[in-house]
């Protein structure tokens, strides 16, 4: 892929609200998940992290959220070191996991109030934020409902509302729509794109779907198959709002597929002679 192609390759941006430098994470002596990874994300930017399944994308988010300690390197968010969730000094994170991770014994409203109380938001504001963010995600009518009574899409909406309600420095999203049916997932992507434009929230979105990354993100960090390194950084040259079936998006998808085939490990696959052409 050349820079003149519709997808332009950008140098790591000049806006560096989130700065990841020389990150290395290993599970043990033999298994390195992330190797020498650099990344920058601007304030209010929507960045997708794209890579094949199991390449270390989720590990990157875990380190950003303080759930894992890196072996080397550092992550700063808004000028403060990230990676210590227990440390009140580190920036507040909103996290949308692959599964909803709501407390099943708390109603939808209580799930939000639990994290808001932990964030020391005052009681009047807690009520106001619950109403506002559930409303924003169109799930306000489920405020007094147990999460088990909701559909997968509704639960994930509540999970996004919870992440936004704590007014985080950044929202980390780990393949949040991968367990949903395609129709619901498309609707959710559409709503997330609108929500991001409304809120101006900084979002780091992990996915293995090239089309999803192109539809949602300003820039895409393409990672190598594990250990994860930055293979390429792509600036998406599409205006918003975007269409999921937009032909230009399909064209960009084709270009990226062609580019990552080899590095994601599919280029060397031999086709048996009897199946050729």
């Amino acid at each position, binding site marked *: 892929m050349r820079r003149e192609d519709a997808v332009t390759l950008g140098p790591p941006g000049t806006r560096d609200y989130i700065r990841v430098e020389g990150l290395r994470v290993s599970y043990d002596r033999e298994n390195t998940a992330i190797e020498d990874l650099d990344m920058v994300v601007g304030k209010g930017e929507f960045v997708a992290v794209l890579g094949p399944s199991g390449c270390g994308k989720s590990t990157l988010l*875990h380190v950003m*959220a*303080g*759930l894992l300690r890196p072996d080397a390197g550092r992550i700063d968010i808004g000028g403060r070191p990230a990676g210590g*969730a*227990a440390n*009140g000094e580190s920036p*507040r*994170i909103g*996290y949308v*996991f692959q*599964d909803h*991770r709501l*407390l*099943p*014994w*708390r109603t939808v409203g209580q799930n939000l109030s*639990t*994290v808001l*109380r*932990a*964030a020391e938001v005052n009681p009047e504001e807690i009520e106001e934020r619950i109403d506002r963010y559930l409303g924003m995600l169109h799930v306000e009518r489920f405020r007094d409902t*147990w999460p*088990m009574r909701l559909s997968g899409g509704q639960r994930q909406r509540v999970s996004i509302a*919870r992440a936004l309600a*704590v007014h985080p420095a950044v929202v980390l999203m780990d393949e949040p729509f991968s367990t949903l049916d395609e129709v619901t997932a498309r609707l959710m992507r559409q709503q997330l794109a609108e929500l991001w434009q409304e809120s101006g929230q900084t979002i780091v979105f992990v996915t293995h779907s090239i089309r999803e990354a192109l539809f949602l993100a300003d820039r895409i960090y393409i990672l190598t198959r594990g250990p994860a390194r930055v293979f390429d950084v792509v600036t998406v040259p599409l205006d918003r709002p975007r269409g999921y079936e937009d032909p230009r998006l399909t064209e960009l998808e084709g270009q990226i597929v062609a580019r990552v085939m080899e590095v994601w490990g599919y280029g060397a696959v031999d086709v048996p002679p009897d199946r050729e052409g």
Partner: protein
Amino acid sequence: MAVRAARVGPIGPERLRRAQAFVVAALLALAVWQLATFISDGWVPSLAEIATAFAEDVTTPSVYAEIWITFKRILIAFAGATSVGIALGVAMGLSRRITAFFRPIVVLGLAIPDPVYIIVAILVLGTDESSGLIAMILALIPFVVNIVVSGVRSRDRGLDEMSSVYRLGRRRYLIDVVARQVAPALIAAIRTCFAFSWKLVVLVEALTQPRGIGAQIYLSFRLLSPEHMIALALIFILVLRAVEALVFAPVERRVLAWMR
């Protein structure tokens, strides 16, 4: 029409079948008992004798005083064992180091037969009330710990990560995340503990105490009155079942409401 019948139908007959099974089992047990009466040459009291003794005991006010004494002992042993057992079980479930320290003690505690606790306590502390209570608490703690540790270990680690990301803090994490996940196991532990307390307290009272239902059952044994032994046990079982139905069941319904 056929579909509607299939949807609505099973609820009624299923309950009826369960009720029938219960009635058949109860009648069978009574028949076996009565048969045992005939072939035991009078040593197994007949159903009529037990019914007479039951009516006699249930209308004797002093029996309720004995029940109250036993019930207080059960409550003390139950409270002591559950509070220590739950605290230790949660700590062991969350920390491998604490588990490494206490695991051998808990395993040993589970292996020791209950009467050994009681006999050793009597030998060391004498026959006053505290020795029996301490023996019961020590005998019950390993059971509670075992159930609670399993519950804590099988918790959803994804919710641990959520708690950490949203900085719920230690207290909120324990109350809102761990305790609620462990609630079914905790309720099982509390019920088990309550049931075991009753069995042990009768043994303790029979061996060491002049008062309480266990002491009265032992007195009936010495007076060669098995029908009163059985009648007293039945009365106390009814009391415990009432406590189960009026206290534990509503608490369980409330705590596990989100599951329904």
